[in-house]
Structure formats: C-alpha cells, structure tokens
C-alpha cells in the first residue's frame, strides 16, 4: 500500500468518524441546574424515553446559547432559574405556552400557586431565595447582620453577583429596590458595595469562594448555595434579611418548535411526581437544596423553609431591567 493510499485512507476514516450519526433521542433538555441529570436518568428508567442533556455551564452561558439559536431552537425543554427570562423567551416565541392541563394535574402549595405565570410561559418546579451568607470564622456571633441595611458595616467585604450575568441576582436587585425604596436603595448599595472586585462576580459559586477564602466576610447569595456549603461542612450560615425575601422560581419551558410534545408533557408530569421530586433531591450540590412547592414534599434536611416572602412586582422589575442592570454595571462592576 503506497503512502498516498494510507494517507487518503486515514483522512477518509476520520471523516467517517466525524459523520457519526446525530443522536436521535426522545427529548433534548437545555438546563443549568444540578439536579437535571439525576432527574433525566430517573425519567429514562421509568418511561424508557431517552433524554439528551445539554449543559453549557452557568445560567448565563445557557441563555447565550439559546439566544444564539434564536428562531431555530434545538431543545425540546428548557429548565432554568429565573422567571423573568423564561417570560422573555415566551414573548419572543422561542417558548410555547405550557398546556393548562399540565398545571391542573399538580397539587401546588400556596407558595407554588403564587409562582404560576399568567402567560403559562413556564411551569414552576421549585424555588429558592436570596440570603446573606456569613463566614462564621470572620464574623462574631454578636456582629451578625440582620437586614440588608446592616451590610453597610461590612463595606468593602461584601461579595455580590452581577445582575447582568445572573437572573436571580437581578430579581434580588429589583426586590431590594422594592423593599428599600429606589433612591434610598441605590444610596445604601453605594455605601455597601465599595469593592468592585467583589461586587461583580459571575456566579453563586464565586460568591461562595469569596466568602470561604475570606476575601469577603459576607455575601449576597442564593440560599440553596449556602445550605449546600453548610451540608458540606463549610463554616457559613444563611441569614434572612428582616425586610423579607423575594422568591426565585425554577421553571420548565417547552420549545415553540418541539416535535416531541408528548414526551415533553410526560417529562413535566414526572418532575412534579413524588419520584421526580425525590430525584431532584438526590445530590449534595446547590440546586438540590431547593424549596419544594408541591404538597406532601419536604425539603432536604437542614434546608430552612420558614421564610418571610415579599411579592416582587414583575411589571416594575421588567420595565426597569435594562436601566437598573446598566446602573449596577457602571457603579459596581466596571
């Protein structure tokens, strides 16, 4: 065999290898939640339907991929933190309304019912909220903050997520303005977030890291992330601010272009069943510590659920989204 034949054969083989057929699964799921893998596995075991899970990274990166796909979405189901962004996708006709029958089959708690969007853009599967993460090695027990306003005394040592990169962080910011007043809230943040290298972090993991390494004494973080660290033995506690907390629902949305509506509905039914909820708690990472919103389902041990909620005015929050995000970026990120 001549050198040339070998060469051509090698190239041909590599081309063939690349041409390995596209996966032909029953569902394609885009998500940025820790429990999606275990849930899909349990779903597959029960129904025999196969699920391809696509997880590009953080919520922001998943959103970027969905935005790039635009009017030609490649997923059947999307499962994310943050109600506002799912509403926007539905408004852009990337998502279709979840059938009303899907909600009727679920016995939601009162908290759960309050999270169902009028547009039916998504079906809520659980929730979490924002709390103050405190490093107990850095902050004495008698110095613990009790409200957002108390964070001023930790100025320069407060870690926070950039709302431009994190949906939950924007919902926290909008809720913070709602409870503290816009001008007073802006002034309070300006006095608190005086260290730009800590106030523009891109994920809850980075807030955790800043608090755990001691770069920050306290952090503004999703509470499920704090409980997962407590369960792992890290020296932190979660403090709920006296002003009240805004709920951050996780939602399932259905692609406007899906060819697998049957499988999608089966998946939703499974997630809201007792088995599905058990799979959603079958792990030790952040998202497994969600707050259940279905009757008869308890949260993971150690997870606080007795929380005072305030209801976020979604209309105000979405009307000011661009302006407030830009304000945050200019003052606390760059």
């Amino acid at each position, binding site marked *: 065999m001549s050198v040339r034949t070998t060469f051509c054969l090698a190239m041909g083989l590599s081309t063939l290898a690349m041409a*390995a057929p596209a996966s032909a699964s029953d569902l394609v799921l885009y998500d940025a939640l820790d429990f999606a893998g275990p849930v899909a596995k349990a779903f597959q075991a029960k129904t025999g339907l196969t699920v391809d899970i696509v997880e590009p*990274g953080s919520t922001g990166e998943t959103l970027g991929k969905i935005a790039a796909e635009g009017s030609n979405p490649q997923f059947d189901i999307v499962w994310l933190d943050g109600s506002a962004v799912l509403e926007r996708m539905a408004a852009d006709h990337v998502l279709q309304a979840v059938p009303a029958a899907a909600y009727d089959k679920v016995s939601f708690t009162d908290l759960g019912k309050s999270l169902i969007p009028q547009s039916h853009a998504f079906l809520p599967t659980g929730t979490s909220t924002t709390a103050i993460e405190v490093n107990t090695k850095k902050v004495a027990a008698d110095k613990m903050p009790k409200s957002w306003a108390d964070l001023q005394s930790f100025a320069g040592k407060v870690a926070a997520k950039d709302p431009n990169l994190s949906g939950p962080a924007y919902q926290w910011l909008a809720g913070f303005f709602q409870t503290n007043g816009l001008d007073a809230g802006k002034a309070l943040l300006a006095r608190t977030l005086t260290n730009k290298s800590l106030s523009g972090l891109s994920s809850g993991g980075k807030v955790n890291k800043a608090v755990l390494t*001691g770069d920050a004494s306290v952090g503004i973080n999703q509470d499920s992330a704090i409980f997962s660290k407590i369960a792992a033995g890290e020296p932190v506690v979660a403090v709920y601010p006296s002003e009240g907390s805004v709920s951050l629902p996780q939602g399932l949305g259905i692609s406007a272009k899906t060819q697998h509506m049957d499988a999608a509905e089966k998946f939703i039914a499974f997630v809201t069943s007792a088995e599905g909820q058990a799979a959603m708690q079958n792990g030790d990472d952040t998202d497994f510590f969600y707050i259940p919103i279905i009757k008869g389902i308890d949260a993971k041990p150690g997870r606080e659920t007795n929380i005072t909620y305030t209801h976020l005015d979604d209309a105000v929050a979405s009307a000011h989204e661009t302006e407030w995000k830009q304000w945050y970026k200019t003052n606390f990120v760059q």
Partner: protein
Amino acid sequence: MTILQHSGAAAFARGAGIGKRSQSRLSALARHGGPFAVYAVFALLIGLPLALVLVQAVMPGLFAARDASNDLSLEPLARVFNAPYVAGSVLHSLELGMLVACTTTALGGAFAVLVQRCDIPGRAAISMVPWLVFLTPSYLKALAWVLLMSSGGYLAQFGLLPLSLGSAFFGLGGLVFVHTLSLFPLAAFIIGSALAGLGSELEDAARLSGAAPFRIWLRINGPLLAPAIALSFIATFAEVLSDFGLASTIARMSNFGVLTYGIYAAASDYPVDFPAAGAQALVLLSLVLLVVVADRLLRRRADPRLISGRARPARLYRLGKWRWLAMAAALTLTFLALALPIAAIAARALTQTLGNGLVWSNFTAANVVAALSLNTAANDGLLRSLFYAGLTALIASSLALLLSTQLDRAGAALRSAVVGLSLGSVAIPGIVLGFGYILVWNRLPGFRDWPFPHYGDGSLLVMGYVAAALPYCLVVILSAIGQLAPGLTDAARLHGVGPTRRLLAITLPLILLSVVTAFLLTFIRTVFELPISQMLIPQSGPPAPTLILKLFSHDRDGLASAIALVAMAAAGIGAALVWYPLQRFMRPRRSVARVDAGSPQFVKAEILS
C-alpha cells in the same frame, strides 16, 4: 513576518513549473486551485462565522428574536465607544498584552537557549517542562493561583504569604506574572524551533574567524532569530488579548476589565446583546491586525532559508560551574510554572472543602475515584474529549500541511494575507468564534439544513476545534517549510516526481517533527479547549472542559480539580507515547564532543536530515 518571505530565482522556477506527464492534473489543480483552496478553507472555517458576529456591530437587528432587519446603524459602535469601561478595557488589554509579550519572549527565549545550547544537568528532563506547562490550560492555572494567593488560600494558611504581596497579586503585577509563567512555552517553542534550524555552519565559520560567543549571538544568531523573536512577541500578544481564562478569574477579581470579559458579559444573557459583543470583538480584532500590519511595514526583508541537506547539529556551550546556577533557575521556573499550580489543584482535588484547609481530617479520595471510575459522567466526558482532540489534531495538522505547501508556492501577498489571518484568528476569543458557528450552522438558510457537519452533533464541534487550532498549526508548519532550502524539492521535480510524492517523500520527512509538534499542540489544547466546547456542546454529551467548568460554576471544584488532574495525566501520557518513540527515530544524538563526520551518528543525521 520576514521568516515567511522569500523570493528569487528558485522560487520563480518553482512557480513556473515544468509541464510533463508526471505533473498531471493534480499539479495544475495545485497551481490554480491552491490559492482558491486556501481562501475557501479560511472563509468557511473562520471568515464567515466571524463576519456574522462582527457585522452585527453595524447591523444590530440582523439576528434579533423579533422583527429581524438588516438596517445599517452606528448605534452599537457609538454606545460601545461612549461607555467609559470599554476605553478602560481596551487600555488594560493593550497594557497587559505588551508587557506580557516582552516578559514571555525574554523568558521563553532564554529558556530555549539554555536548554538547547547549554550543557545544563538534566537537560532532557528540563526540556519537557514547556510541554507540561502547555498541557495545563490557562483557566486551571488561574484557578490554582487564586487558590494559592487569595487571603484565605493555601499560601496564607501556611503563613507563607505576606498580606501586602497577596493584595498586590490581584492586579497588573499578578496578571503579568501568571500570564508569563503560562505562556513562556509558546515563546520557547517558536524560538527553539528556529534555533534548531540554525545548524552550526554559520556559527562555526564565525568562530573559526575568531569571533567570541557574545559577538556570534549579537551579530549572527541574533539577527537570524529576529523573525522568530518577532513572531513570538506577536503570538504572545495575540494570545493575551484573546485569553479568557485569566480574564474571567484573576483579572475579574482585581477589577482589571479586559475586552474578552466584556464580550463574554455581553453574550451571556437572554436576549444576548449581540451588537455590543460584535462591536467589542471588532475593536479586539482591529488591535491584533494593527500589530501584524505594523510588523510587516517595519520589516521587509528576504527570509533566511537555512535547512539544507547538509546542516550539522549545533554544539553545546560548556557553562562550567555556572551550569548549576542555570539549572537552579530552570528548576525555579519549573516549580512556579508547573509544580506549585498542579500541587494546588491536586490539594483541592484531594480535600473535601477549601475553607478547612490542608488538615488530615479534610482529605478524601472520593473526587479522584469518581473521575477514574468507568461509566461516570466525569469519565465519559474525559474519553469523549480525548477522542475529539485526537481527531481534531489529525485533521488540523494534515490540513495545515497541505495549505502550507500551497502557500509556500504561492505569491508573497497570499502568504502575508494568510499569516495575518492566522495571527488575527489566534486573537479571536473562542466564545466569538463559537457564537459565529451557531449563527452560521443554525441560523443561515442553506447551512442549517446540511446534514454534515450539523449543529448539535460532534461533527460541528470538531470543525470548530479545527478552526481554533488551524492558525497554530499553520504558524508552526509554515515556519518549518519556510526554512527548507528550495533546492530539495526542485531537484525531485526535475527528476519527474509528482507533487503528492514530493510532499510525502521529501517535504514531510524533513519537517516531520514540526508536523508532529503541531499535532500534539493541537491535541493537548483541544482536550482543554473551553469556549467552543461550551457553545457547540454536542447533544450526545459534554466534553471534559464543559464538564469541568460546569462543576466549577456549580461550586464543586473538588471534583472539577480531580477531572482536570486526570485529563492532564491522560493527555500527557498520550502525547508522550507519540513523541518519545518518534523523537528517538528522528532526532540525531548530539554530543558535547566535536561531531565526527565518520561516526555512525553523523551518518544517521545526514540520512535523516
């Protein structure tokens, strides 16, 4: 790049060609189709995806989710240029790029000379260091240094870190430090391969004429290496501008905003601020192209073509007792660039929590066991990445070899265009290229319905990897081909040898080490390539980098560190299995003693070179 310029009678003769039977249609195709093929490959792999991202800087509505339109507008550019943080990040990127290009070229060049031309003890082992440093991706090194230097990090836990040094590290100083340590292999490879090609004839002649070593380096080797030094400077600069690993970790934590992070921030939301991402990418690319063009305008000389059939291996300098000092310097570099970051990652992989530090009760083997057990998500991702990387390396290095031979024959204008494009595309952040790929293969009518490659399959991921790797392969292989004396292939052609056989029987063996270098570089980089893996993640399952990053962002850095460790070991062993046997066969043994023309080694060297 002067190293890629050449002209003269030989080139003219080659260009003219001789139309005989053996030079059938293939060569005609090569003559006329060559430049076309080069342009087509670049347009499809890099040009089109990039253009779709950049054009949104002036057509902001092109891919809007609602009411898409192709109206021209200068609004995004005006918005970006009026934002004070953009001017700040341009200055930061430039400042960092320039500083690191200087420090890296100096360090890498010194290292190459030390290892290739001096008799330091343990030379063979030390020459492996750049490869190993290159093996660790920048985001892992950045993470390792954060674990080490932050105020509650490992060095502080051991009381080894003065507070002032810790805070100074998170700023320009720390960024230059980590970039230099992480990029010096690039400079060492580029300058080292030019050094290897110099041979010793010119140096021997100078020494026989009574020139001292310092004068030889200043007047002979220095000028001959100048193109490689310039190339190293520019490649490093481009690499720093396009870096995302440090930009998203140390730079972010130091509030040192750079352009790549601005692009990432604009591209990570729904809806994506495409116009802002496009406008910032445009600024980034213009900066790199300016440097490439400036370099071309400054230096217009013919390049040296030095590898002939008669090159002798250069002799080693005897450093005497200074060699121990030289070895200590090399070992310090090894410690800082390799041992310390890997130790930090290993420590994190083997402990349960970061906060509780390195105490006995905090150690666990669970993370590493999970990464090594078959049929776990971690292990599947690892195997997938190794397969994709091997395939990418094979395709990219073969393609680069074919393109290089076309380019070597083509005119100077095409060559400079391609080198400019290659260096420009080294500076394209992977995230921009990844976005472009989605736009082309999922949005453009015509492309999105093609079965192969198809968005969502492994095929498009491999294509994206090839696009990201091709510029590197081209730079490595072009500079090797550029050093071949034209007489070798001319002689074969005059004997009626066809172009394919000339490529496989003459050119390839002479530059085989460079081709394998390109292959291994691509292999290792692709195993850890992050942004493209994220954007083009196949539906059939994630490659290792996406998995590592996901675990980091979901705060499971113990398991992520474990996967990273295993991936480095696997890629390293794979690369060593290819490199060592080949090097044994290819490279003539070099001794400190005078080379004896009658020795078997010399005969072997003559045959092989």
